[in-house]
């Protein structure tokens, strides 16, 4: 597969895996309204995954379904943050906030890509992300400034998530090549703005910016947490059990 195809595929993996995670909230959110809002967000991610995986597949004649349903976990290259279990509501919202700020910068930059298809997908994604961020930023604030318990749970979530954020801003050889060609986003360049924005919001929400000493990485190399396999077994079950099944 070409470099651009591989790049589109890993971006599609990011969207597919987090979309699947968010779908798990369906019927489990604290109130009906939030349930609908989370499902809408999940569908935004699934829509984005379809666009990106279809584009990735177009480089070597694979369908979006083949890419989504017929790859093993070592072939997925999503960032680890996407696959972490939802945890409690504070954990899911804190993750969403950290990712929404990241994706805001990322898709604004990708919209300038020299690859027209990626630029168009990024333009669409940027609008969705602007809304996701509005929601998750409010939730961070509401939970941080809410009760002692909501504050403590959100702080615990940030502390746990923090070690996974380093990976957001690391480049590998593939992305280096594509960034030099004006196709991919140089994710290192997004870190300073991300850190400033996130630090401000966390502080204003009465929370502490974690001083986590550890960090993990590996998603872009196909080295995942123990959780991705379980997620895929649910996501892929139907196509594995009934190959070629369609609606």
């Amino acid at each position, binding site marked *: 597969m070409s470099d651009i195809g591989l790049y589109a595929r890993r971006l599609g993996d990011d969207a597919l895996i987090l979309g699947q995670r968010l779908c798990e909230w369906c019927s489990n959110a*604290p*109130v*009906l*309204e939030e349930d*609908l*809002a989370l499902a809408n967000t999940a569908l935004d991610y699934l829509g984005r995954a379809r666009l990106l995986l279809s584009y990735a597949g177009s480089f070597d004649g694979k369908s979006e379904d083949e890419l989504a349903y017929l790859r093993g976990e070592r072939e997925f290259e999503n960032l680890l943050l996407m696959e972490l279990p939802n945890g409690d509501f504070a954990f899911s919202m804190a993750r969403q906030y950290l990712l929404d700020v990241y994706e805001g910068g990322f898709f604004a930059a990708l919209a300038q890509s020299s690859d027209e298809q990626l630029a168009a997908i990024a333009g669409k994604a940027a609008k969705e992300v602007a*809304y996701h961020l509005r*929601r998750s930023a409010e939730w961070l604030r509401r939970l941080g400034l809410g009760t002692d318990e909501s504050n403590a749970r959100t702080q615990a979530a940030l502390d746990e998530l923090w070690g996974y954020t380093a990976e957001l801003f690391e480049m590998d050889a593939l992305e280096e090549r594509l960034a030099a060609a004006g196709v991919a986003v140089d994710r290192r360049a997004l870190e300073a703005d991300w850190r400033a924005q996130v630090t401000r919001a966390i502080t204003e929400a009465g929370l502490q910016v974690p001083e986590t000493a550890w960090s993990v990485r590996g998603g872009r190399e196909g080295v995942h947490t123990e959780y991705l396999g379980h997620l895929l077994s649910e996501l892929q079950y139907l196509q594995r059990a009934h190959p070629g099944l369609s609606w």
Partner: protein
Amino acid sequence: MSNRNMMPLFEVFVRGKRGLDHIHVGSLHAHDAEQALEYARDTYIRRGEGVSIWVVESKHIHASQESDAQAFYDPMDDKPYRHATYYTLPDGVDNM
């Protein structure tokens, strides 16, 4: 849904297209007006049903009561002269 009682009720009005009026479409619970707008967006216009949303906390709406119906509405039933069609136009008036 145990914390629902901590969230006030909002009424939602949606404008379907530019130039149309906002129409009441339903109600929802939210922690504040800002969240009510977002929940209204996610609940009522997810299929592109609107271009503008109003939300108002339900407690701010003063509604007429069923018990007032006789005094409020019945007296209107026998006053046809309040309709323009009650009047015969003079022959000299062509366009009205």
